């Protein structure tokens, strides 16, 4: 029975290479059919191992991998109907673009004319027609990537697995190829699983972002969810764009609590998703860098802004549409404000200036 459903379920998947340490440690995840899913985490977090287990290049030590309702553990990649795009593309150096793309059909015993015709159709899809007779070594990085994509896609997989597909490209090309990946995914209408360590890449592409650390999933959700509402300090710091502060709870007042901090009145934090806190708990909170406003001491805070922390400007970086201002607001953690360019240059600060870092009460987010 052949089915084209590319939904994936990982149930208690574990992997250990030496029997003692677990590279992947009890991962449970559901990926919808036709989703673009990005696994993100630092190197060694197990994301590539998960990809290779879904692909059938490694067997899990424990757990089930279900694709389209069928447990695929122990099956070859072709039987799983998955295809993998390798990090360095792994194009066969002795075969032309056309032959590389036709390889999967060749090993299935398709006749030469049929398979080359099919390959040519695929070549057209990835816009490589004029390079069809070249060897991989004669192509640029971006062209090689398209060949790798076409070679994987010609097997008509229901899941395409991409191992850091953009890491070999330079910055500009990376942004361009990123769009191309998304376009191909929509065109093919199949599930893509993409491993990366670049946050921007993950949130730009994915329907489902999975943040990993040491073999475990830290948070999985829509890109905006993971970026704007990180569960904990690890996710907040890893995804970036957040200032993380910690402190002890001074008092609890209904739907919010006050965090003892350098600020004279403490920091007021709404409870939001966090169920409860008690006085004396040590709590981490996150404040988005673009939610922080800087006000000169003595001036009025904008309406709705209650917290203000006196800080000294440590460094300033111009980033184009915003200015990155680094502050010594909290002793142990980095604290940064992203100030819109026009706001900043209306009254520019210099290094060493004392400013008040302030934000609207509602934008502080308690972390787990």
């Amino acid at each position, binding site marked *: 029975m052949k089915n084209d459903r590319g939904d994936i379920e990982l149930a208690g998947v574990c992997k250990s290479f030496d029997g003692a340490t677990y590279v992947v440690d009890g991962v449970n995840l559901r990926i919808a059919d036709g989703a673009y899913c990005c696994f993100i985490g630092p190197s060694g977090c197990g994301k590539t191992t998960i990809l290779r287990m879904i*692909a059938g290049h490694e067997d899990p030590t424990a757990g089930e991998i279900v694709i389209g309702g069928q447990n695929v553990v122990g099956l070859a990649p*072709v039987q799983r109907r998955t295809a993998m795009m*390798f990090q360095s593309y792994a194009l*066969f150096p*002795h075969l032309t673009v056309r032959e590389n793309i036709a390889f999967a059909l*060749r090993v299935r015993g398709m006749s030469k004319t049929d398979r080359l015709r099919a390959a040519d159709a695929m070549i057209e899809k990835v816009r490589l027609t004029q390079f069809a007779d070249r060897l991989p070594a*004669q192509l640029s990085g971006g062209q090689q990537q398209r060949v790798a994509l076409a070679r994987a896609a010609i097997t008509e997989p229901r899941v395409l697995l991409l191992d850091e597909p953009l890491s070999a490209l330079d910055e500009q090309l990376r942004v361009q190829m990123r769009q191309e990946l998304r376009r191909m995914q929509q065109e093919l209408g199949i599930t893509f699983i993409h491993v990366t360590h670049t946050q921007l890449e993950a949130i730009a592409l994915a329907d489902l972002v999975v943040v990993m650390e040491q073999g475990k999933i830290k948070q999985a959700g829509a890109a905006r969810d993971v970026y704007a509402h990180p569960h904990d300090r690890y996710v907040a710091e890893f995804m970036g764009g957040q200032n993380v502060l910690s402190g002890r709870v001074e008092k609890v007042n209904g739907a919010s609590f006050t965090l003892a901090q350098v600020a004279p009145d403490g920091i007021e934090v709404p409870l939001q998703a966090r169920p409860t806190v008690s006085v004396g708990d040590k709590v981490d909170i996150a404040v988005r860098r673009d939610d922080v406003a800087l006000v000169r001491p003595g001036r009025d805070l904008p309406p709705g802004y209650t917290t203000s922390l006196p800080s000294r400007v440590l460094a300033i970086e111009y980033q184009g549409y915003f200015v990155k201002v680094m502050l010594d607001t909290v002793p142990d953690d980095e604290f940064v404000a992203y100030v819109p360019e026009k706001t900043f240059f209306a009254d520019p600060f210099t290094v060493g200036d004392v400013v008040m870092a302030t934000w609207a009460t509602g934008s502080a987010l308690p972390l787990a």
Partner: protein
Amino acid sequence: MSAVLADMPETVAPATSKAIAPSKGGRPWTFYVLATLFGLYVIALYGPMFCIYILSFQDIRGGLVFPMKGHSLHWFVDLFTQVRTGDVKGSFDRSIKLAVIVTVITVVVSFLAGLGFRKRFRGDTFVFYMMIGSLVAPGLVLGLGTGLLFQALGLNASWYSSALGAQLSWTLPFGVLVMFAVMSRFDHVWEEAAYDLGASRWQSIRLVMIPVLAPGLVAVALFGFTLSYDEFARSLQTAGSLNTLPLEIWSMTLNVTSPSLYALGTVTTIVSFIVIGASLGSIVLIQKKRGSQAKG
């Protein structure tokens, strides 16, 4: 201490013209020293051979030493027609056949060993040293031992059995070492990609591995062939009653006192060059074929 330090600037020598730097686009003097050294090396390497080649083209009055007496191909004709010079044609035949058999076995076994050693396994270091250990044994002793073993087993020594075995003890370790160097350039991920695209083990070896490694395999074959074709020490006690070419040349040095000997040297060299030329040619052809396909 401080007085010494204070004196330092004056003791520093000024830059001299001896520093190695090209002057006005010319070559530094070291170039000429090294070029002379290289010239001497080349003369030492090829001079003796050229003496033999030149003396083999003398006419009927020719002797074993310079000066050269006339020019002709007399001694080449003599080589293949005279009985007293020994069985040159027969030994040449045997040497070529033996070298071909040795080459085939060396390439196949080395390739398989290369496949086996892609991944580490328990005792791999031990197996590796067992494979190349025989390189250390003196060839003459190894040949003697092979001869004795055949005698003890009641087998007749001959070029296609005992000599073949003795030669393989020489070519296989070399072949394996070259193969390892060749294999180190094969990226394991190509095999993985082939598997991912549905290739069987055999298809991935036939369609990916062998074509990618082809130039290296030709190099292993060339090694096997030339080592066997030249082999003397191990064949001496194992070839039995019929000589291989190096043995024949050796026996000629003992009883032939004419430039025929030199003519034989020239002929074998030409054969070696043809083999080397064919191997290099095939490597170039493989690469050119890829190049032209690429131009399309």
